[in-house]
């Protein structure tokens, strides 16, 4: 069931929150082979559901009232284990609640568990998790994408209708595309980062997963809020995204890339992309060709800035205060052993890269230059949005791939993010939605919008989904 139907049947008392929750928990158990969850909270979830049923009138008016949800295990949840899929936080129970999960609780949703992910959100295939890889519901040997692979698999497999994720270089949109669901990365600053374990602070942004734009809009309504605890949080009038789905934004000018067939995108993905353009045309929108030859420099910039920030952000995991601690007799061994044992290979690699690019003598050549590219990327988009309302792109180069296929070749894995990274570098919002099926596997495409144009992104995706069925297909 998709989100809209679940909420309707709860509101109409056709089904209770408890039944919905039990159903989600049962499915999670039945599909435990997907490894989508790191933790599930059966007892707490059912208790909350019972409470909601007992106070039905209070909850039926809430945006997410009675709806089971799964949260990426990157959000701190008070009194409930939060691991970031790392051994170093295997037994970490935060004493506080993240703003995102707190907002979702307050909107009446029921957290059934915390989803699997790439360790510290570093990865594009969910293979770096300390708790093992997540399996794509579309095929036993396929990756779901990453880093929010568990959340994407959870929604794709219909365990819950909603899940939260985070997107630093494509970690919502890429798994959404590979799992055939809808996922939105909001404008940097729209959703609070308080309580969200940092990977790359200047790009990390939390966002919603759902089968369709409607679910994403409702979940974003709950997630987004100005938060004084996050200095990068945007102070803006609250937009009601669900209502904005009914807006008429008129005929839009949509930017498409010149020479898109030169980027190494698969035939199937390009075909689905062209088909979507036909749908958009039918909806009355027109296209403008954009010259974006700098697109691929985004990856280089991203893979300097993100490791740089992560090398600093992950310094706090030193075995002194919380998390894993190795047995050592002196302080430097404690650091060395704790961190060597606690972090997986990908995380260690990125810490090393980040440490290197920030070192004296290399800073200018790497970090400063990467920031320059980032500014260039931003001004490129500023220029685009002078002439177009949206930029339309495939989300990924290809469809879901086999496990272990790319994990041995970092360059190929990093290239997964080619089409998603520019929005992160610029801080822009982008939505990925399912727009085709080939070889029995889903395909995704994305819109990138101007700052704080989430209402438009959700609206146009919703309009497409009103006249197409790709988002309704369940593996």
């Amino acid at each position, binding site marked *: 069931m998709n989100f809209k139907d679940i909420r309707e049947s709860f509101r109409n008392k056709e089904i209770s929150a408890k039944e919905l929750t039990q159903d989600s928990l049962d499915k999670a158990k039945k599909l435990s082979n997907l490894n989508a969850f790191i933790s599930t909270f059966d007892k707490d979830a059912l208790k909350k559901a019972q409470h909601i049923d007992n106070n039905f009138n209070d909850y039926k008016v809430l945006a997410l009232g009675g709806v089971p949800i799964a949260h990426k295990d990157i*959000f*701190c949840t008070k009194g409930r284990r*939060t691991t*970031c899929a790392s051994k170093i*936080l295997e037994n*970490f129970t*935060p*004493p*506080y609640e*993240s703003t995102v999960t707190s907002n979702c609780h307050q909107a009446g949703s029921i957290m059934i568990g915390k989803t699997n992910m790439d360790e510290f959100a570093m990865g594009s295939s969910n293979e770096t998790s300390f708790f093992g890889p997540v399996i794509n519901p579309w095929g036993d040997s396929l990756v779901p994408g990453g880093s929010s692979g568990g959340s994407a698999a959870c929604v794709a497999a219909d365990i819950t209708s909603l899940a939260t994720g985070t997107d630093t270089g494509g970690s919502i949109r890429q798994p959404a595309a590979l799992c055939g669901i809808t996922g939105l990365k909001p404008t940097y600053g729209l959703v609070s*980062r*308080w*309580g*969200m*374990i*940092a990977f*790359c*602070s*200047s790009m990390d942004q939390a966002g919603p997963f759902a089968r369709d734009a409607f679910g994403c809009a409702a979940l974003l309504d709950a997630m987004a809020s100005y938060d*004084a*605890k*996050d*200095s*990068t949080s945007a102070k803006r009038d609250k937009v009601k995204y669900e209502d904005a789905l009914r807006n008429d934004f008129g005929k839009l000018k949509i930017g498409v890339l010149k020479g898109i067939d030169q980027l190494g995108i698969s035939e199937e993905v390009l075909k689905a992309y062209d088909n979507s353009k036909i749908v958009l045309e039918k909806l009355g929108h027109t296209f403008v060709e954009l010259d974006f030859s700098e697109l691929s420099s985004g990856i280089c910039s991203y893979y300097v800035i993100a490791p*740089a*920030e992560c*090398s*600093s952000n*992950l*310094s*706090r*995991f*030193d075995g*002194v*205060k*919380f998390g894993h601690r190795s047995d050592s007799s002196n*302080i430097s061994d404690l*650091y060395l052993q704790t961190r060597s044992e606690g972090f997986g290979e990908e995380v260690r690699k990125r810490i090393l890269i980040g*440490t290197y690019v*920030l*070192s*004296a003598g290399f*800073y200018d050549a790497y*970090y400063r230059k990467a920031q320059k590219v980032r500014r260039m990327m931003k001004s490129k988009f500023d220029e685009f949005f002078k002439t177009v309302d949206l930029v339309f792109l495939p989300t990924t180069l290809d469809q879901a791939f086999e496990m272990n296929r790319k994990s041995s070749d970092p360059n190929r894995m990093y290239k997964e993010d080619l089409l998603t990274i520019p929005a992160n570098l610029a801080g822009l919002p982008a939505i990925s939605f399912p727009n085709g099926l080939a070889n029995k596997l889903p395909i995704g495409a994305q819109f990138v919008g101007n700052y704080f144009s989430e209402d438009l992104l959700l609206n146009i995706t919703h309009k497409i989904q009103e006249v197409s069925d790709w988002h309704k297909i369940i593996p």
Partner: protein
Amino acid sequence: MAQDNTLVNGWQPVIGLEVHVQLTTNTKLFSPSRNQFGEEANTLVDLIDLGLPGVLPVLNEGAIKQGIKFGLATNAEIAETMVFDRKNYFYPDLPKGYQITQLHYPIVKNGRVSIEDKEVRIHQAHLEEDAGKSIHDIYEDESVIDLNRSGVPLLEIVSEPDIRSAEEAVRYLKKIHQIVTYLDISDGNMSQGSLRCDANVSIMRPDDKEYGTRAEIKNINSFRFVEKAINYEIKRQIKVLESGGKVEQETRLYDAIKDETRSMRTKEFANDYRYFPCPDLVPFSISDKLTQEVQANMGELPEQKQARLVEAYGLSEYDAGVICGDKLTADFYEAVVKNANPELTAKWIIGDLNALINKNDVNLSDSKITAENFSQLIQKISDNTISGKIAKEVLEEIWESGEDVAKVIEGKGLQQISDKSELEAIVDQIINDNPSQVTAYKSGKDKLFGFFVGQAMKATQGKANPGLINQILKSKLN
């Protein structure tokens, strides 16, 4: 460049100071925890100070105002936009594994202060968070950490290498201390670590074009140690160079007990701090409005206060200067003179009270002397209840016990004897008991007058009103 009077064995010392000042604010620099010294360990710590996963810093604007105040007081440039950076290094009392500080865009740049007839330029002053405290001497086999200090706001004031001797360094440090305490930027309490200092020391020949290699002496926490540490270091470097060696660029520690500096880490082992802009904090713009608001609410600077004391209480420039030497004393003075003679108060503060403070090596604020009690003491001198000599005794007594002045005088029977007939009887007795001295005095030995005064004081245990005794003795002997 060379200043002959500061040469040591023909070498010119070149010194720059980095002064860390803990700011007086209600809360910490990036967290809502209270900023307070001396509380039970780890009680002023919240999620942010612990560096828990997922927490974020929020800048305390009170600290910004303190920084602006310092900038205004030193005629410096206040940044239009300041940026916070991360300084990355591992240490157990640094919970995040990095310190948030300001490298390229500090709050204050290019200031200057005058020390007597010399000007010392301030390169910059930047805001940063303090680290926690590692404690190694409580348990035998374990070190423990107190994070109460973690995140306390600091202003690090970096001078240009304009200082040429240890004495100048102390004068400069005293000046900084004066400014920050006068403006309530900091309590300036060095023994509690509210003001600490690193000294960069090098030596050169007067006609050298370039400075010598410098050593940095870390964490010096008293004026006396600053002087000693720098003087030791200058001598050490001279010895090294004159015996054909090379001064190493290194970090050294001053050991106050052995009175020496010793190497902590050399350049090869220096940390690479991998500074980069802190992505959790957006660049902060300081508006003219904010600067003007701070300016309007700035307290009195030492020079202003000194001028006012001269004007309002008729003090000499010198006395007013001594009293305004530190804010505690100046504030104490003003509180005392509400009810006491201003000149006499000045005399007693500069003389006996300061002597006690120096002798015991404490702060006035840490002593048991209160303005109210001290004011009573001065009043008792003014109204002749006690003599100056007795007053010294009383002062020492209240310094020790903190007891009320009136009670001390009464309890010890120290009131001055000003009863004329009582004193006349005593004088008569002395004249009777010392006939030969009386004869000698009357035959012209004027010096013997002091003998009679002494005898009278002895007989009254010093309580006789000296003016009255003189008067009676003169009338009876002449």
